[in-house]
């Protein structure tokens, strides 16, 4: 069973979203996703200042065997990148919900975050696959 913390929001593309303030979120990939990918060896993140559109590709996560795209979970502007995870992508495997975060998005509408999946809805998705 994969770990799905209840205080986070999720997307069907196996990303988690954590509200840091009323209009800023932190984004990463879920424990389920890191397990399915295997050893992660490369991360391509968006750039700080870049505008992202909900549902659009904004990065990549690669394991030894395959590549997986990262989708922006919400509309907004990239306000921070986790440089440590770019340098040490394996952090995503060991700590997907903490030090393995990928980027932060600001200028986010609160209702977009509310509309994301909650942990039980996301758990249903992981069981279906």
């Amino acid at each position: 069973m994969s770990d799905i913390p209840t205080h986070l929001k999720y997307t069907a593309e196996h990303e988690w979203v954590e509200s840091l303030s009323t209009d800023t979120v932190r984004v990463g990939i879920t424990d389920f996703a890191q397990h399915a990918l295997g050893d992660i060896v490369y991360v391509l993140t968006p750039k700080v200042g870049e505008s992202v559109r909900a549902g659009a590709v904004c990065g990549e996560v690669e394991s030894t065997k395959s590549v997986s795209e990262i989708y922006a979970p919400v509309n907004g502007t990239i306000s921070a990148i986790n440089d440590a995870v770019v340098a040490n992508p394996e952090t995503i495997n060991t700590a997907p919900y903490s030090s393995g975060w990928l980027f932060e998005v600001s200028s986010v509408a609160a209702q977009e975050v509310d509309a994301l999946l909650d942990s039980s809805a996301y758990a249903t998705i992981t069981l279906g696959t």
Partner: protein
Amino acid sequence: MESPLLSIHTTLGAKMGDFAGWLMPLEYPAPVGGGTLTEHQAVREAVGLFDVSHLGKISIVGPGAKQWANQIFTNDLNRIAAGQAQYSLLCNDEGGVVDDVIIYCHGDDELLVVPNAANAESVFAILQGKNSQGLSIANRHNDFAVIAVQGPLSQELLRKVGLHQDLEYMSFAQVTFDGVTFTLCRTGYSGEHGYELLPPSEIAVRVWNELSREALASGGKIAGLGARDTLRTEMGYPLHGHELSLTISPLDANISWAIGWRKEAFLGHEALRIQQAKGVARLLRGLLLTERGIPRGGMLVRNGAGAVVGEITSGTFSPTLKEGIALALIESGIEVGEQLMIDVRGRSLGAVVVKPPFVPSHVRDQ
């Protein structure tokens, strides 16, 4: 078809994948494995235990078996004697590669051919079709397991379980376990000092359990086919379907050393001699990325002017070098040391042409 060791992998919780109809382990969870990177590192630094029972096994027995096979496979079997193994190719009349194989010479009248899982049936069919002198050619795909023990501690591991024999690289001997005698070969696909064991299927689990207990006790890991692929890519070893195929000749793949040019005939020899005389337009080379990123099979390779000069056949992240590496078929005029670009999903990443292996080979180390 399934490996006689399948239940071991599922019990260990291995991530499984389909290989030519065989459900085989890709990687294992910790502590026995720990994922491709950990399993890869264990083979480079300690020892790794692999199930590669999906490899084919075709026996050729009867008077003159060796000389008969020497007119079929590309390499010259007269270079080896009983107790030695040889890398060889089965080509078609056009010089395309049906499969690459290891041939174990038990004597002038007995060989064991080990093809890739996906090609075992085609190799068997071609050999049967050429069998005009009543040799006994048998597809023994399910009769044996193939267990690979690879890494600097492999010799010590075999000694601990009482299966050790002093062997030169590419040679083999018979060992006995629980009263059953089978073949132990100094062969492998990792670039490390290593062995492959061919126990009959009915004792495979017992042999595996013994090896696995000792491997884990000495800091080794159980390793999956994920690590096997990153290990072989670091060595620049070709994989059929990627670096060799019906449309990629041995000359394209830069392995003409596996062709016995002095032999009068072998399948595809006329086409290959013409290719050799004319020269090939493309050659298999190594590419080492000079920027962060991971090349993958099918990606295009371009020169400084942006013109396409080749295509990647296999690419991965090198767990040893921590860089992207690739094998690629590129224009034969391009030399080692030249700078090229790889088109990675729209990003253009720099790479330098190198001569594999990407990391030093230790297959002949004592």
